[in-house]
């Protein structure tokens, strides 16, 4: 069942020239679905969310909840619980009063309300902070209050605008599990905005990747990760290498391309890719699907390490593979101690994991 529908919604902040903040967006979100808006800073995620919440009116297009047009419905009639990107906590209330506000509006009894407030504060690990003033909290604590305030009212729809951006990884993981649990239990349709791909991947039923106000791809996490529609999506989700390679053969779902100095390799491709032999295909290859090899091993792309970055779980190597290919990033869980910047190295691609993308 479709719960939320955005039909060619656009939002323009000024009448004059400037590009639209949200440009002809079409989305349908099912009831109980956990839907994520993902995209670079300034791409229009908040603007979209605020239109759904009713704080902006679309310049064009319609928004429907359960089939009913709510484009211009007052925000307080929409029963959405929103976590604002800037928190928007009530500074004149204590933490507990902030969280209880929505319950009071809903005339929940005092006892029930205080029970639920405590529960919500516990969910975000703020037990015992109920009587503090907002200004006495750290940034992350404030963000958690904002989250608790939205969760506690059990709205029919959750709108979460980067609700975890100021939390540490550990807490973020715990909290997102909590959010997912609550959301699943109640079947709450949720729209989640994040700039964190891992988070989007881990939580979402579906993801819409936006860029400059437009939706680039909508799909399940695996789809957007493994079968990115465009080079932008490939690069944006994880750090994909997008290589321009000459096509040596093509059928409906596979394209064979030539690797620089390493023979040919088959890559997956979306239907209707329209590539023919002789064309240049954009092929995305994820760092973790490129294995390190000796520079002189057979069938490898040869290059020179230009940068090494330790990120904890894996080390990212940037390898210069010469003029055509440019630079390629490789993720290696265990980098042999001897590899260093400047070293020559060989790279081996995994055929099943390549994917042809649109520019």
């Amino acid at each position, binding site marked *: 069942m479709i719960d939320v529908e955005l039909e060619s919604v656009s939002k323009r902040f000024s009448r004059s020239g400037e590009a639209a903040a949200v440009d002809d967006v079409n989305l349908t979100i099912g009831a109980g679905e956990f839907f994520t808006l993902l995209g670079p800073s300034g791409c229009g995620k908040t603007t979209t969310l605020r239109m759904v919440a009713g*704080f902006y009116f679309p310049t064009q297009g319609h928004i429907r909840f359960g089939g009913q047009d709510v484009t211009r419905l007052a*925000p307080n009639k929409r029963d959405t619980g929103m976590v*604002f*990107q800037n928190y928007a906590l009530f500074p*004149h209330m204590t933490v507990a009063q902030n969280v209880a506000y929505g319950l009071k509006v809903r005339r929940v009894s005092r006892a029930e309300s205080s029970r639920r407030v405590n529960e919500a504060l516990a969910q975000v690990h703020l037990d015992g902070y109920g009587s503090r003033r907002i*200004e006495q909290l750290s940034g992350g604590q404030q963000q958690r209050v904002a989250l608790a305030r939205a969760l506690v009212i059990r709205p029919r729809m959750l709108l979460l605008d980067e609700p975890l951006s100021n939390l540490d990884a550990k807490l973020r993981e715990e909290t997102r599990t909590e959010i997912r649990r609550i959301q699943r239990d109640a079947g709450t349709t949720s729209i989640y905005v994040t700039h964190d791909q891992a988070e989007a991947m881990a939580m979402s039923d579906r993801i819409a990747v936006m860029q400059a106000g437009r939706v680039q791809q909508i799909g399940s996490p695996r789809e957007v990760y493994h079968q990115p529609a465009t080079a932008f999506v490939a690069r944006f989700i994880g750090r994909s290498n997008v290589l321009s390679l000459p096509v040596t053969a093509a059928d409906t779902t596979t394209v064979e391309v030539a690797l620089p100095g390493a023979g040919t390799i088959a890559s997956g491709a979306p239907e209707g890719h329209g590539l023919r032999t002789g064309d240049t295909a954009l092929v995305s290859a994820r760092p973790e699907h490129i294995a390190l090899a000796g520079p002189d091993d057979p069938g490898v792309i040869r290059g020179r390490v230009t940068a090494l970055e330790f990120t904890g779980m894996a080390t990212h190597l940037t390898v210069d593979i010469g003029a055509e290919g440019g630079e390629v990033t490789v993720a290696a869980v265990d980098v042999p101690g001897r590899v260093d910047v400047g070293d020559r190295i060989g790279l081996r691609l995994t055929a099943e994991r390549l994917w042809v993308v649109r520019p």
Partner: protein
Amino acid sequence: MTAASSTVPSRRVALARRLAGGANAAWFPYLMVAPLVLILWGYVVQPMLATFVESVSEDGVSNYTQFFTSAGVARTSLITSLAISVASVVLCGVVGVAMAFLLKRFSFPGRRLIEAFILVPAALPPLIGAISFQLLYSEIGILPRGLQRLFGTESPVLAFDGIAGVLVVHTFTMYPFFYLAASAALAGLDPSIEEAAYNLGAGRVRVWRTVLLPMLTPAMVSASLLVFMTSLASYTAPLLFGVDQTMTMQIYINRTNGDLPMASTYASALGLVSIAFLLLMRWYEGRRSYLSQSKGISARRREISNPVGRWLAPVASVLAAIVLLAPVATIALVAFSEDGSWTTEIIPSAYSIDNFVTIVSEPKAFQPILNSLQMSLLATAGCIVIGVLIAYAVRRLRFVGRSLLDIGVMIAWALPGTVVAINLISAFSTGNSFSFGQALIGTFWILPLAYFVRFLPLVFRASSASLALIDPSLEEAARNLGASWFRAFLNITVRLMLPGVIVGALLAFVHGVGEFVASVLIYTSSTVPISVAINNRMYSFEIGTAAAYGMLQVVLIFVVMWFSSRLENGGGRAAARQAEQWTN
């Protein structure tokens, strides 16, 4: 930064380092506050203490105990005055906030004109202003008599008298305190807080009740204090509507009786009540924080979907403006009517411009206006400098005695104007160190000084209220970028306080132009203010010419309001943009 040459700093170096702490050091608040305290002490507190001293000079205790004995006039007056003040606060609050809501939350053609207009009642010249209310709402007023004719009743309908009349006058003349404070605060409010409340399901009324109004607390507190104290010290309205069991009437009567200590006792009691109210308000405000903790700056944009609201707002605003402007219109009516042509008629039967001709044909007709302008501007400038600094000190700096500083500023507002003037005369009739050894009485400077002392609280309170909404971390950011305390204060804090400061300055200016009760005691022949000029006409019952003078004053104030409202909006460009956003 160069490393210290010695790792074991001598005491002198340690001291130098302490001093180098600049605006951060523990002593900084005291250093900054010291000159302010000195100014307050010399020009405000110490002169006003004279009243208290006089009240306890002879049989002081028995004077004060009168307030606690049940039968006495003293107690009744105190209670009546308190009741009137509280009621005035409530009424002004309702009207002022409602007007702020209508005019700042909606945009419609002519809004800015109305905005400039609705402040005019605050600028009504005293006396003629009060009479205009009588001519409107009392038994002999246009409205009751008009209704009488309409319904064909025996006596005038809906005539205000007594306390009701006083409250009407208070509401009309003092609601701008609330209007201005509320609109400045509304403009400075973080819009996302309001959005959050809507999002949580609250309706418009609830959002106002639980979020906007509480967030306006600093502004409301500031306005309440001003209205409360003004009402408590108000004299003309109770006089005109014959409510003589009030503190101010008792002060006047006791002075006429020659019982100066008792008069001072009343005045001191007035001051004490005001201080008590001030402390109560400070406590109330201090319970919560009003500083938005939001990250970044949220867009100022709420789009009005409700078509009813779209139409209702302008209609309601225009209606309200008409009602509020009625007293001014009445003055105009008087100014343009022929002498003796308006007795039992509902409105005058004959019109002329003779009154204006009379004024203009006088050689020095405009001198009082220029005097008033000049003196008010001077005083306002002083109020801005000192008021803003004190507001900053009281709100932002941590030092012992902040409440005392607050009280020190407000005390001159809590006392009736006459008392303030008499105190100033006593203090400055001979030279003292605060007047640089000169006697200020009889010079030009005493009037601006009096205006400064009287209206400092207006700028102080308004600035203080707007400061409550400004995130201190902005100043920190500026300091972090290398700005000295003073620079950060000017560039950031004062700039952001500006709406509040302008509001305060406007009020101070308008009140300065209209000030009468103190002026009449200290003006000199070269500094005749317009209020005295008007009063001289009133005294000889030249109501027509007095009204004509009053109209000039009103026009003057209107022009100032009009320009200042542009200033406040940061020029027409910003105003236009804002309007565009609101209507979208």
